[in-house]
């Protein structure tokens, strides 16, 4: 649904995005991660046809953003970082205008406005003036603006920034309830958000794509990656370290009575060997589990790795 090939965008001498390639399939929800100023917004603006790429090829729904921008714009719904609202207008007038921009007139216009307001939970708010709305409601109106024409591709630039936890949940639910026919790219720097709603994520730093994959792939990619947590009795740390395949053993804090707490790294799953060794020594196993670094740790190590 979205194809980006060697995309580069330069503002004069400053290169904002450099040689980025990725594809997003139909129906996918993809998180776009990166520190501030990494090039997320620039990439999204190019996908929507707002600014042209310097070099590279960008196709949305099969149409090139440079050759057929109107076709792309028809199929894309876009929520910029701050919702694009006219503070003087009422919600009804504003969404009516947006509907007309999308070529819905007369009865169709009223229908579209009514149904999108219901979807984002604004029913009955037609005559509220936009400048009087709280941040959360402004964001909902912004989302309504992006959803009104039922776009195939939805591009959301930090849809939950600055909202309170309840509002964040509301917006997330909305995104999760979108139809399976809608492809979503959403940028954020709230990592728990990506874990909650995006099966796949792209990480961009200093204008380059530094990692992509499912959330667990990204977590495993972090330096160190996978490790094992063990609470054992009856053995010593060097004994565990001597087991075949175990690369590194590190005690985690003080032992809890007879229980030794260990961080074990190994090329292959060492749990059967550890359990066998412990029972051979007459000890016991209280915990033995596989651990992945958190997405935060993975993110910091991936983004930091490129520095």
């Amino acid at each position, binding site marked *: 649904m979205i194809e980006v090939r060697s995309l580069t965008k330069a503002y004069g001498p400053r290169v904002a995005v450099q040689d980025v390639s990725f594809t997003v399939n139909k129906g996918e929800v993809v998180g776009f991660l990166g520190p501030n100023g990494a090039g997320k917004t620039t990439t999204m603006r190019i996908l929507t*046809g*707002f600014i042209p790429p310097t070099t590279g090829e960008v196709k949305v729904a099969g149409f090139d953003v440079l050759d057929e921008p109107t076709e792309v*714009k028809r199929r894309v719904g876009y929520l910029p970082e701050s919702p694009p609202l*006219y503070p003087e*207008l009422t919600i009804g007038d504003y969404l009516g205008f947006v509907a007309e921009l999308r070529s819905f007139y007369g009865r169709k216009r009223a229908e579209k406005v009514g149904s999108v307001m219901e979807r984002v939970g604004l029913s009955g708010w037609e005559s509220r003036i936009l400048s009087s709305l709280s941040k959360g409601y402004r964001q909902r109106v912004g989302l309504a*603006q992006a959803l009104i024409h039922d776009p195939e591709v939805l591009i959301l630039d930090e849809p939950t920034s600055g909202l309170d936890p309840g509002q964040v949940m509301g917006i997330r639910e909305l995104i999760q309830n979108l139809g399976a026919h809608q492809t979503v790219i959403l940028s954020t720097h709230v990592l728990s958000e990506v874990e909650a709603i995006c099966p796949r994520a792209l990480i961009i730093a200093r204008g380059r794509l530094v990692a992509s994959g499912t959330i667990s792939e990204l977590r495993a990619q972090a330096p160190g990656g996978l490790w094992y947590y063990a609470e054992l009795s009856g053995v010593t740390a060097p004994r565990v370290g001597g087991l075949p395949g175990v690369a590194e053993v590190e005690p985690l804090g003080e032992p809890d009575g007879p229980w030794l707490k260990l961080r074990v790294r190994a090329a292959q799953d060492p749990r059967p060997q550890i359990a066998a060794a412990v029972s051979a020594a007459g000890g016991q196993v209280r915990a033995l589990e596989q651990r992945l670094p958190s997405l935060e740790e993975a993110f910091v190590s991936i983004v930091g790795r490129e520095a």
Partner: protein
Amino acid sequence: MRHLIAVWKKEMRIYFVSPVAYVFLAVYLFLAGVFFYLGVTLTGEASLRVLLGNLAITLVFVLPMLTMRQFAEERRQGTLEMLLTSPVPLAAVVVGKWAASLTLCLLMFLGTLLFPAVLAYYGDPDWGVVATSYLGLIGVASGFCAAGLFASSLIDDQVAAGLIGVVMLLPFWLVGRSEALLPDDMAEKLRDFGVLAHLDSFNRGVIDSIDVYYFVCFTAVFLFLTYRSVESRRWR
């Protein structure tokens, strides 16, 4: 075309839900009243010459204030991003905005029709001249709205856009009166670029095609420049 109307409707709504339109209408009618009173009492003739001449000058200062927000504000609020990512031709946006500010101008002129009515009650004005004078005024308004829109597309700050608009329009006014400032041959050459040279025949009751052409070109050139300016800023 329907996109153009959508943009026009939105601009009109913004004018009329905020105090902007009412303040402009009130101020313009007040100024018109003053000019009318002075014009009639000082010259003692039943003509609108002084009134309409002064109303045209006022447009140099009033119209950039009317158009200054149109692109500057869209850009500042981020709504330009929405307009340019919707499948609407940029030309429809530009012309829709220009048409909205011109419409507000026409409403201001409509208000000033009170004064010819007063003249008709007490005297016998030349209706042909009144009609062509208004036509000239509309020509000026059309061109100045386009120029003001261009100023608004240049810069994000609306007050700065307004001032740029005024400064941009002043030369078009002054070249008609610059004989004292410029060498004779230069003043002669520049005269035809000025608005006054072309307003003159309208005010005498004559519609000359060259003058109509002047105002049409004035409008078209500035609308085109606006289009290019909005378009080109996306590439930087």
